[in-house]
């Protein structure tokens, strides 16, 4: 009796061990197939894999590939399996095959069929492993096991000679080594039942001693029994170890898959965001261009009536000058001044809309040139106000659109001139460069009326003028906006320091020429 226990345990361990190993190998194969990016689902590669597994892991009847549509395409080995090629598994006549296959596709998990008559011949079962890449099923790996072949691989000769073996799945007898039924279970109650479990299956093993062997062998050799138990224990341990390894492997795989899909999701989200940002930037650029074009054409349309006003004011004076009374002349002058101011405004607006829209080649040139030209251009008001202008020595080269930067320098200088109080006994302007945080900072300093801190940002906006500017006649409120746009267009920064009553210093930086 104990001998029978040992034998049945041995059978259980061997069948479970073999099947577990085959299932794992199929799983590995399925994973390997999709781990390339993009997966290389070639017939050649599949057959290489299949042959390798078939040869080194006995027990398989067939290793096949089923396409995503459920049709068997590639089989290994060809002999014995050729009848399977072209079969539509998804519409298999036997629902016991069809259903697990569909389940594998739906749940994206391996599925095992119950035992049935195989096309390859004999009784056996299929396992289906969905090959998933990019969240899509790229086909199925199909392992075919004939029960007889599995048992032949597992069972030792002495067991076959000593015992009658029956294996049931559910209530169906799927394997036996009897040529004809020798046993009458009712009469012969000396038999052992054992459960055999492996992924997707539970079998019942029934073991009967062949008549002539029992009972003598049973208790006669306790040493052998002990040895058997020992072996059994070791095999159990081995099985446990194997199972453990498989679980570990599974967990690692799940984890890796999870990580991969997480990373993919993150990448996709990033891509989506990038696209959104790109679209937004394009939209913004288009809006900006549109606005600039608008400003440009509006400015032109505004110019047309000014040409008319100025023209006819001139014509009036010329043709009827001697008829115009003094008061009327005064009024005409008001109109004239207003028109001229409007013209200045329009020109400034036009200029502002041109920055960045019209690009001239950037060059490298001495900063001293810029300052010299700006001072020369503003010589009349400088002399009229008796302003002392000092320029520091050893000025560096700067890089940019010379005409625009000249405009910046001129605007800053004329701004400084404007905001020096007429009553100031010693008006001064200083222009130069200082090192600050490893950067060359160009500055224009005056000892004018100064600016309240609350206006530091505002003065760079179009048409923003200081309350104190009321007493200053000229100026359109665009000059500093142009300065800011030009400097920012050049990749630099502009800011100011000021104290009311003491003066103002404007600073700006420029990018160095790219290497």
């Amino acid at each position, binding site marked *: 009796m104990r001998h029978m226990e040992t034998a049945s345990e041995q059978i259980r361990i061997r069948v479970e061990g073999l099947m577990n190993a085959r299932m794992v190998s199929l799983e590995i194969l399925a994973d390997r197939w999709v781990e390339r990016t993009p997966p290389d689902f070639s017939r050649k590669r599949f057959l290489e894999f299949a042959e390798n597994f078939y040869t080194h892991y006995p027990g398989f009847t067939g290793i096949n590939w089923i396409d995503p549509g459920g049709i068997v395409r590639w089989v290994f080995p060809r002999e014995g399996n050729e009848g399977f090629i072209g079969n539509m598994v998804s519409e298999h006549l036997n629902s016991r095959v069809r259903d697990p296959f569909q389940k594998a596709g739906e749940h994206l998990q391996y599925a095992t069929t119950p035992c049935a008559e195989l096309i390859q011949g004999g009784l056996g079962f299929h396992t289906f492993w969905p090959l998933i890449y990019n969240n899509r099923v790229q086909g199925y790996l199909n392992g075919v096991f004939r029960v007889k072949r599995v048992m032949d691989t597992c069972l030792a000769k002495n067991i076959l000679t000593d015992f009658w073996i029956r294996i049931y799945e559910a209530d169906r007898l799927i394997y036996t080594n009897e040529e004809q039924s020798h046993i009458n279970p009712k009469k012969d109650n000396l038999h052992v039942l054992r459960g055999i479990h492996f992924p997707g299956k539970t079998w019942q093993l029934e073991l009967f001693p062949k008549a002539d062997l029992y009972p003598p062998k049973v208790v006669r050799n306790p040493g052998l029994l002990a040895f058997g138990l020992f072996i059994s224990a070791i095999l159990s341990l081995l099985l446990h170890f194997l199972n453990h390894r498989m679980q570990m492997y599974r967990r690692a795989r799940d984890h890796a898959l999870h990580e991969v899909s997480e990373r993919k999701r993150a990448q996709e989200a990033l891509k989506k965001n990038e696209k959104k940002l790109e679209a937004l930037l394009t939209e913004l650029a288009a809006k900006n261009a549109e606005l600039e074009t608008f400003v440009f054409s509006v400015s*032109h349309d505004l*110019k*047309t009536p000014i*040409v008319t006003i100025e023209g006819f004011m*001139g*014509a009036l004076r010329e043709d009827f000058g001697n008829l115009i009374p003094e008061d009327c002349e005064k009024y005409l002058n008001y109109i004239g001044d207003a028109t001229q101011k409007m013209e200045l405004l329009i020109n400034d607006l036009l200029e502002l809309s041109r920055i960045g829209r019209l690009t001239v080649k950037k060059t490298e040139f001495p900063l001293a040139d810029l300052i010299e030209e700006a001072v020369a251009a503003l010589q009349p008001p400088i002399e009229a106000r008796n302003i002392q202008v000092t320029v520091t020595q050893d000025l560096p080269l700067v890089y940019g659109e010379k005409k625009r930067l000249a405009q910046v320098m001129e605007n800053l200088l004329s701004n400084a001139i404007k905001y020096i109080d007429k009553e100031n006994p010693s008006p001064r302007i200083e222009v130069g460069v200082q090192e600050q945080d490893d950067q060359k900072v160009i500055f224009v300093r005056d000892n004018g009326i100064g600016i309240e801190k609350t206006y530091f940002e505002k003065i760079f906006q179009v048409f923003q003028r200081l309350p104190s500017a009321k007493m200053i006649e000229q100026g359109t409120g665009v000059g500093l906006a142009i300065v800011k746009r030009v400097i920012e267009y050049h990749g630099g920064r502009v800011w100011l320091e000021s104290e009311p009553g003491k003066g103002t210093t404007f600073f700006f930086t420029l990018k160095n020429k790219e290497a």
Partner: protein
Amino acid sequence: MDYEPSNILLVEDEEAHAELTKRAIRKAGNANRVDIVSNGEQALDYLYNREKYADKKKYPVPGLILLDIKLPGIDGIDVLKTIKEDPGLKQIPVIMLTTSEREEDIVRSYEHYANSYLTKPVGFKAFEEKIAQVDFYWMILNKRPLIED
């Protein structure tokens, strides 16, 4: 009879600007006739002696065309194109006279063989001076081909 054409065709939709331009031409001492049309269609009618300009004696080929760009309907560039593609008209000097400083307009004008591109200056004196210079250069200094009548 061959003759040297001397009348000026001014194509200008802004009545005030037309008036100013005509006045400046007069002041420059040019006594030639200045005919004003206010849109592109009329300009072409004038040049091809159609509709109310059918009288060829009264409206001969002009010696100079001052052409605004922004016109209602057929715009200045279209008129320029028609003139410069017509063998009978293409030798007439066409001066683009506009408030537009758009680079695009300048480029397009020269692409279609405008003889000159001028912007209307703001300011009475500047305007008069520029027109006087145009008149002096194109009507006096510049030698034009005789036109078969």
